[in-house]
């Protein structure tokens, strides 16, 4: 009796646990890989990038022609309405579970609505480990750029921004999860990288090749301001970013260039009370190696020059931020965490409430030169 019961139970499990209802056959779907969201005239415009399933995996044989990329575009009063319109017009059903990049336009950023976060977090198929970018360009163009060597768009900066960031770290790419968790934090600034393209750098025979790159970032102070900064204006930011992996710095001494690459800066921000207002002490400790040395100078002097260069970059980023009522160095977050009472008592709300041109009290940079590359610490004769 018991044995029959057991066999029956096992059969039962075999039948039911294989989940026939939710089974999905992979060739029956169109996979959306990127979603772009724009806003115009009271309506959201949603762009989706569909990549041919066969072009997803890298294969041994090189593709001889560029893989087809479809860009869908629909309008709607909400994101879901627009996406539903897109779904009505596909030939196989659309699958959202593999979206790995979101791109939002400047207009959407300026609206500061909660709709996108609501859409992404409520949907049980979308992932917050996806990348998120802002853009000033048109999404049509962004989404139609293929990877190099006829690879699909999945092998571009749009999908793997970390690959480039790791070798030249300026603006840290972020995921949806980090973007929204930082953005909703009181007194915090979120840095949302912006993506753009040009066709001036690479050529294929005589044809210009389009390539994607990060050109700057929007510095978002939730519900207050979201100005755009170019990569150069943000050069001070990399010294306050833990993930900075390799970042180049150039200095000029004796009319000769000295070039070094730095990595993993340690930083410390300390608010200090001066005349009833908090100012900030910033400490940076960074090590790097010299990769270009054309002139014979004492290493200590070079170090000092690098230190003052880094200091200059931080100050200039701070000052540009000040003009636009932004706090790119995220000083507000430290102040809020360490001096909560002061923050609440003075009803501080936006960067200009707690920052002015003298807010940086002291910047203390320490540079360590680990080595001078494959050559000794003197220029070639």
């Amino acid at each position: 009796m018991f044995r029959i019961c057991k066999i029956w139970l096992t059969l039962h499990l075999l039948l039911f646990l294989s989940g026939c209802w939710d089974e999905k056959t992979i060739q029956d779907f169109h996979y959306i890989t990127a979603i772009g969201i724009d806003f115009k005239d009271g309506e959201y415009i949603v762009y989706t990038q569909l990549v041919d399933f066969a072009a997803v995996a890298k294969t041994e044989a090189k593709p001889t022609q560029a893989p087809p990329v479809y860009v869908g575009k629909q309008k709607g009063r909400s994101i879901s309405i627009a996406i539903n319109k897109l779904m009505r017009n596909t030939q196989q059903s659309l699958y959202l579970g593999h979206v790995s990049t979101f791109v939002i336009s400047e207009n959407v950023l300026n609206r500061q609505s909660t709709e996108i976060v609501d859409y992404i977090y409520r949907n049980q198929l979308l992932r917050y480990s996806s990348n998120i970018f802002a853009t000033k360009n048109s999404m049509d163009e962004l989404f139609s750029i293929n990877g190099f060597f006829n690879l699909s768009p999945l092998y571009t900066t749009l999908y793997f921004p970390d690959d480039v960031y790791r070798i030249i770290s300026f603006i840290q790419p972020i995921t949806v999860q980090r973007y929204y968790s930082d953005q909703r934090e009181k007194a915090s600034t979120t840095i949302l990288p912006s993506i753009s393209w040009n066709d001036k750098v690479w050529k294929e025979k005589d044809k210009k090749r389009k390539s994607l790159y990060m050109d700057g970032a929007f510095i978002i102070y939730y519900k207050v301001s979201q100005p755009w900064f170019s990569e150069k204006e943000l050069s001070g930011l990399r010294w306050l970013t833990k993930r900075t992996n390799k970042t180049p710095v150039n200095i000029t001494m004796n009319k000769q260039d000295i070039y070094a690459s730095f990595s993993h800066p340690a930083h410390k921000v300390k608010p200090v009370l001066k005349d009833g207002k908090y100012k900030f002490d910033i400490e940076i400790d960074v090590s790097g190696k010299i990769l270009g040395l054309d002139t014979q100078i004492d290493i200590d002097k070079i170090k000092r020059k690098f230190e003052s260069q880094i200091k200059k970059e931080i100050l200039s980023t701070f000052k540009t931020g000040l003009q636009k009522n932004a706090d790119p160095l995220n000083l507000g977050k430290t102040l809020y965490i360490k001096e909560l009472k002061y923050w609440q008592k003075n009803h501080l709300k936006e960067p200009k409430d707690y920052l002015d041109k003298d807010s940086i009290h002291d910047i203390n940079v320490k540079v360590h030169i680990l080595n001078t590359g494959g050559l000794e610490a003197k220029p070639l004769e």
Partner: protein
Amino acid sequence: MKKISSIQTLSIFFLSIGLLNHVILIPFLLSTGGRDAWFFSILTIGLIPIWVYILSRIIKNMDNQSLTDWLENRFGKHIKNIALFFIVIYLISLVLATTKETIDWITTSFLFETPSLAIIIPFTLLCIFLAHSGMRSIAICSSVLLPIVVILGIFVATGNIPTKDYSHLLPLFENGYFHGIKTLQYSGYGLTELILIAFFQEKLSDKLKIKVLVFLCLGLVFLLLGPLTAALAEFGPSLAEVMRYPAYEQWRLLTIGKYIEHTDFFSIYQWLAGAYIRVSMALFLIMEVFKGKTNNVKLGILFAVGFLMVVISIVPFSNFKFLHISQKFYYPGAFYFLLLLSAFLFIGTFIRSKEGKRHANETIQK
């Protein structure tokens, strides 16, 4: 009679209360306490010595008698029946709340199109089968299930480290010092449920040492703190507060390198292992209350509760209403009930047993 060891008891509780502390209670803690929740959860560590003292005194005093016998000896038949009645009600509610939570999670997170019946019937049958096989089977089952659950837990905790930013844990007390104090009723609930040890202590082969109990309590608090701080560090307080399944969302976040993602199916194993042991244990303890009855009566009771499990998961009672009720009424209520029950049992340890009295009289007469 075959008995179970302390280690097996540990694994039973790490799975059954683990599901509670690690998963079910996290959204309540976050939505009542916000950022301060983790701080108040740490405070519960301070209560562990008192709680362990009470527990060990009760277990020692029960001295291998079953709960029903012990209650009758101390309080007499009437009070025993009343106490058992409330205990059974509590155990049934535990079974139903766990089942409802599990099935809701499955249907809102990944099996959108599968009818709930197809999920709930096998689950109920398995639980009844395990409960009917006895405490030793539950113990063996949980010692088999637990190691993989632990390995997966370590996997998701360490794999997510790059996405965590622990600065979200500060500043504390944004909304006053006592804003999060209500979270204590949730963070304490997992610990108070340890009183269930008293319901089956006679099945233990060795004495539960104080060391083991302290380890168990610390482990449970640690299980609570892990996903709680991780949810705050990953999503920030404002998003973590409104998430329905913060612990599960952490699995959805996990990516390793470029090509490994979508690992959340592992969480199904973890959750179901916990729910399976939790429900089976409660079903078994319900059966224990009806100890003297025949096998058929016991089976009937099991199937009756099983029927309730099926009913509760298919009635169209929406998830957010269930969330509201369990957060506002059920879990705090269960917490206070268990506190009362523990106090009641603790008082019982001071009453001299009737058998003991008789025994004492006999020796005096001799």
